[in-house]
């Protein structure tokens, strides 16, 4: 039997019965637990440095869990944190994740949930540890080259962090959960993970859970046998069989019906399935990547996404930042898209005017890169010239004011 490493858990919880319960939950696991009741004691314990993970209640007597995260960030203390939040406090959990928490648990939770959350976290940390660049930096990290991460353009800090997670996650089989608004490149991220990993020679099969009618979805994933339903005139492989050895990308996971989520959970656990109407159990070897443009915690809270499925998939989370959080990248992406569209449309466009650059930077891009792509394509198709000027911009960009500095220059 392999030796299991004992991890030290710092539990920060002021309600004693809850703390005792959590300690008991972890008793037969490879964890030692140190319990403190206040944020101040937690920070002191961190200073002593013996902490592999902190389980942090958000509501503490002397400060909030968010304050603890903020102090950790200010002082450079680097212990992965799983926040414990009350049911219905999803916003707090999201705030905590943005403040640096690695994961969250919603009260009440049982022993299994706690152990899965910790196991997922340590799996993710082990993956990251294999890549020194992804560790907490004691020196400035070298900027990841976008071209090394398939298909992405941009070197903003937000994207640097995405590239590092993609590169760290790629060699592993751990499940990845990608969140982000529409048009931020979630599918591109899934492809990048697949292409950069050992499964690159096998297929990546994408399935959009929002686009397939509910009654066909099971067959789309697991396939069917002839006669399984009217219209099933031959045996047909589903995405699971087609992706064998490769990656199954489940886009818009939150739109999957709950009945099927239960079947998917079983499939995730043992990677075996029966095609619709079939009796034979088929076994496959898959890596799972899921994505959603919704807030998964809210979907769990609303009962539209199974919590156990979420935990099973949420091993390596990736947040794709919206374009408005990537101001530095907007122009690089626009230039790249302009060159590509000009080539395709056989047009001479080569640059953006300074006014257009300023407008692009100022605009909030609700449709993200996809919207930028459409804007550029529109300009290239509808206009002539080498330089894109404000007059060429389509709606709604043609309604935003040219930044004042350019008006003054005239």
């Amino acid at each position, binding site marked *: 039997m392999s030796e299991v490493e004992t991890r030290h858990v710092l539990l920060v919880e002021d*309600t*004693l019965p*809850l703390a*005792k319960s959590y300690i008991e939950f972890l*008793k*037969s696991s490879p964890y030692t637990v140190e319990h403190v009741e206040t944020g101040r004691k937690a920070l002191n314990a961190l200073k002593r440095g013996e902490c592999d993970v902190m389980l942090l209640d958000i509501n503490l007597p002397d400060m909030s869990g968010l304050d603890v995260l903020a102090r950790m960030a200010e002082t450079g203390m680097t212990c992965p944190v799983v926040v414990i939040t009350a049911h*219905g406090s999803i916003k707090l959990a999201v705030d905590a994740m943005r403040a640096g928490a690695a994961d969250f648990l919603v009260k*009440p*939770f*049982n022993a299994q949930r706690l152990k899965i959350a910790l196991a997922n976290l340590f799996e993710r940390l082990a993956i990251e540890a294999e890549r020194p660049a992804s560790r907490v930096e004691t020196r400035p990290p070298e900027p990841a080259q976008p071209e090394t991460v398939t298909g992405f353009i941009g070197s903003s800090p937000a994207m640097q962090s995405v590239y590092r997670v993609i590169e760290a996650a790629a060699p592993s089989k751990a499940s990845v959960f990608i969140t982000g608004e529409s048009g931020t490149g979630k599918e591109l991220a899934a492809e990048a993970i697949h292409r950069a990993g050992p499964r690159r020679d096998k297929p990546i099969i994408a399935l959009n859970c929002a686009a397939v009618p509910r009654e066909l979805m099971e067959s789309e994933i697991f396939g069917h046998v002839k006669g399984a339903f009217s219209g099933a005139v031959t045996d047909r492989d589903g995405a699971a069989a087609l992706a064998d050895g490769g990656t199954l990308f489940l886009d818009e996971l939150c739109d999957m019906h709950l009945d099927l989520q239960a079947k998917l959970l079983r499939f995730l656990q043992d990677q075996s399935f029966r095609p619709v109407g079939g009796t034979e159990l088929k076994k496959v070897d898959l890596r799972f990547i899921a994505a959603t443009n919704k807030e998964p915690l809210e979907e769990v809270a609303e009962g539209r996404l199974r919590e156990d499925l979420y935990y099973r998939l949420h091993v390596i989370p990736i947040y794709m930042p919206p374009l408005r959080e990537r101001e530095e990248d907007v122009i690089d992406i626009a230039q790249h898209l302009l060159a590509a569209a000009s080539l395709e449309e056989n047009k001479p466009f080569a640059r953006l005017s300074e006014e257009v650059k300023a407008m692009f930077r100022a605009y909030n891009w609700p449709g993200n890169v996809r919207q930028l792509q459409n804007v550029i394509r529109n300009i290239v198709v509808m206009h002539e010239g080498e330089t894109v000027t404000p007059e060429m911009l389509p709606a709604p960009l043609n309604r935003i004011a040219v930044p004042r500095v350019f008006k003054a220059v005239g």
Partner: protein
Amino acid sequence: MAGVAHLASEAAGEDTLGPLRDHLDPKAFREIVELYETTVRDRADAIARAARTGDFDMVRRSAHDLAGMCGQLGAARATQLARRIEGACAGGKGHDALALIPELAPAVAETLRALAEIAR
């Protein structure tokens, strides 16, 4: 009716103490159940006391603790009331909190009865 089963049956949540009973020796299990009993009673008393003096911050904090514990126990009614009291205090609606507090006592009493049963 077994206490844990009873508590869990009225909840949307999970039976979290049941597996602990299987996992712990009887003495340790009884200690943890007694700790819940003591603390649930203490927080319920604290809510009543703080409400009498108009200390709604204390009402909110105690209601938060109570909700967390009752949620963990699967005691749905007490959890729900405690959360509503906490929310009312957080939203500056002390009158709403005061109106809910009398309903809390029987829900907490029910939770304590069930806990006493399983501690036996």
